[in-house]
């Protein structure tokens, strides 16, 4: 697809009706996403039925706008209230909230919005220019390659554990165990269901995560008595020179890795944001000036960029091969199919008009979101000043809604509340929660790719150069983590 087709796509998007739809999609997505405990998953679930009345191009424009809007909004409530609505905004909660407490909420919001914007625009250009050439990547990544990638990702857990690595690994294993509840994939044996119908469907990450962070944060605030955020100022938007330099570099790295990993089916933004967070953290620790855990701007910029870049590059395998990389892409694919547009190579040839309009709308949506979110940041920030007697119950209700909409299951509200108490208790005992979530996400991927590899042929591991590279990288990663850990221990000993 050349420039002229893309310009025709822009002409299509600049029609008042389409612009309005894109704007409304962004706004609705942001509104839902900004509610504490609600993120892209909930926003799509709540707003998807409304897109049924639109044509194929308009439906995708609106769906994408809602998706991106909810991701922007999700980071906002994560930064201001430490309540992420989706796993991918977890890093924003971990690093953004400490900044909010220091009265730097404005800067944190601006960095998140800026990084998302840059990644969104770069990602869109990527989909347009190199998308068709990279599509084959989705087919290169079979079970052995996926297994390698998951093994490598698991080593990032060490980078996520503040303090004891052993505790981090323990929590990751606990996450994997809980994620394995439900029906076995091949034999349909029940695993840890205790005969319960609800447990048979397994535990969903969304209610678990909302509980571990959202509900637990409400409990902690109640315990403290006074919410800290309430007293804090929003502060200016402009980052300092140093902050800008550090977050821009992280955003650049996040964009590239997020985009490339997003081409792989099964790679969700939740995984790539964690990888970006862990690698930025390790990078900072190697340099010896890590501020992670106390509001490191790299921990906001990198993961936010990775998040958006992954979301963008998911369109490459979808448009070129009809392979959805995650649930949202599956929905967009369904919307296309209903209108008789079959995703595939023709998306860049005979259906190029639709594709061009969609790509143009991504540019427009990213601009709308930036324009919408920077001025609104001040408004959203006022949320944190609502008296906690009002805000607390509202947050709890929103968390319940977020937990429910993931699968329309009342049981998930219970899961969310139980996870909330568990999250509060883990905080008390100093157990890191992030590795738990990482284990929860990677566990099922590890199991599936391992079993697929074994069923196909275990020998395929040795024959796959990609697997061997990842396995080597994983070993190096463990060794580096061990060295860093040793150094840290020596330092503590020296200080003592």
């Amino acid at each position, binding site marked *: 697809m050349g420039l002229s087709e893309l310009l025709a796509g822009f002409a299509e998007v600049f029609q008042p009706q389409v612009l309005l739809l894109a704007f409304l999609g962004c706004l609705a997505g942001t509104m839902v996403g900004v509610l504490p405990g609600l993120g892209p998953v909930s926003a799509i679930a709540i707003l998807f039925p409304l897109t049924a009345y639109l044509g194929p191009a308009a439906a995708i424009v609106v769906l994408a706008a809602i998706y991106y809007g909810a991701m922007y909004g999700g980071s906002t409530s994560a930064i201001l209230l430490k309540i992420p609505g989706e796993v991918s905004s977890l890093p924003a909660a971990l690093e953004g909230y400490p900044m909010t407490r220091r009265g730097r909420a404005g800067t944190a919001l601006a960095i998140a919005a800026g990084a998302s914007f840059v990644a969104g625009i770069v990602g869109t250009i990527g989909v347009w220019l190199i998308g068709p050439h990279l599509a084959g990547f989705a087919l290169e990544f079979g079970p052995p390659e996926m297994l390698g990638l998951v093994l490598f990702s698991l080593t990032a857990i060490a980078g996520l554990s503040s303090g004891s690595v052993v505790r981090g690994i323990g929590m990751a294993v606990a996450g994997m165990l809980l994620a394995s509840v439900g029906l076995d994939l091949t034999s*349909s044996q029940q695993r840890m269901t205790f005969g319960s119908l609800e447990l048979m469907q397994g535990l969903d990450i969304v209610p678990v995560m909302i509980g571990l962070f959202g509900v637990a944060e409400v409990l902690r605030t109640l315990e403290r008595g006074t919410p800290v955020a309430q007293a804090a100022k929003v502060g200016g938007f402009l980052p300092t020179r140093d902050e800008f330099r550090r977050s821009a570099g992280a955003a650049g790295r996040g964009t590239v890795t997020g985009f490339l990993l997003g081409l792989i089916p099964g790679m969700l933004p939740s995984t790539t944001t964690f990888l970006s967070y862990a690698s930025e953290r390790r990078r900072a620790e190697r340099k010896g000036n890590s501020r992670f855990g106390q509001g490191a701007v790299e921990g906001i910029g990198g993961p936010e960029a990775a998040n958006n870049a992954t979301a963008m590059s998911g369109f490459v395998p979808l448009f070129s091969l009809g392979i959805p990389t995650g649930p949202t892409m599956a929905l967009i694919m369904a919307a296309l*199919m209903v209108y008789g547009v079959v995703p595939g190579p023709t998306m860049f040839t005979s259906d190029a008009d639709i594709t061009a309009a969609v790509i143009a709308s991504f540019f427009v949506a990213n601009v709308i979101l930036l324009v919408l979110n920077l001025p609104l940041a001040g408004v959203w920030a006022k949320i944190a000043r609502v008296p906690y007697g009002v805000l607390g119950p509202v947050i709890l209700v929103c968390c319940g809604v977020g937990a429910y909409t993931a699968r329309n299951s009342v049981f998930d509200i219970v899961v969310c509340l139980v996870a909330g108490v568990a999250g509060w208790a883990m905080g008390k005992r100093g157990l890191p929660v992030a590795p738990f979530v990482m284990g929860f996400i990677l566990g099922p991927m590890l199991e599936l790719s391992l079993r697929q590899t074994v069923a*196909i042929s275990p020998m395929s591991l040795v024959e796959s150069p990609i697997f061997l590279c990842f396995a080597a990288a994983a070993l190096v990663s463990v060794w580096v983590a061990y060295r860093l850990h040793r150094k840290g221990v020596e330092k503590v000993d020296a200080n003592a």
Partner: protein
Amino acid sequence: MRSFVRVAAAVCTAALLTSCAAAAETAASYPSRSIDYVVPFAAGGSTDIAARAGAEALSDELGVPVNVINKPGADQIIGVSSVRSAEPDGYTLLADGAGSSSIQGLLPYVPYDWADRTFVAKFAEGPHVYVVGGESSYRDYDDVVETAKRDPDHFTVGWIGGSSTSDYATLQFLAENGIDAARVQRVPFRSSGEVMRAVAAGDIDFGAGGASSAFSLSKTGKLRPIALTGDKPVTKLEGVPTAAELGHPGLDMRYWVGVSAPPGLPGDLTTKLADAVAAIAEDETVVEALDAVGLSPAVLTGEDLRADIDREKHRFATLSEQIGVAG
């Protein structure tokens, strides 16, 4: 203050009375409010798409909103049991299919009597497609059969947990051609879409899925559809032979989508709903939407439908005995 309480009490009583009236609704007044149409799968799959097309048409036909609600998980048990435990008032319906009815008859862990529900009507059905890799050495149907027969231990097929018609289509293929299903390597996947990707990439030898799951990849040439089940061709899979054309009329595994209700739905409501479902199957736009995802209208109601599903269950039982486990 007292008057407020009195007004509140009156409002509550009125509301209660209205809801009682609603419960005792007759076919003449039904439906008077929105209907929940529960899809026991996640959004985006073949059943979900067909159910959404059906819901929109049903909404026009009945004059009330029909809301699609996805309740995925646990081999469709969650979705089905939520509908079974709802009031049999016609306002909670199930987007039923083989995976949520006859196949459940084979699963030992289903905590209810699978047949204990009101089968209202089915409105659409579609064939499965058998695929091999575009760059594989398999040229056609007979090629695959020959290789698989020679060395079943190294023949890898996609498997989606055994609770879907796609898996039964695979079992039917193996049985029809005398390939030992217990020796074939079943590689687990989460959806037929993932199976198609793996076959196209050459990770596995063979896969089956609803016809629409092969639309995209077959256009790239990376996926080679070798046969469609049944005897009707599919518009978007031009040139793919049907099993009947290849001399295997026994390969007729189809998936279907319909409407079911909780046990005890009053007869007049069942009839009215069945008539509405039958009417939408003739609607041009619905037929078009179904065709876009490889389905065609196929209406079957009441006892005929129940008997059909019962037959289906027995066929599934025979097939699953080959691999020694139910489901």
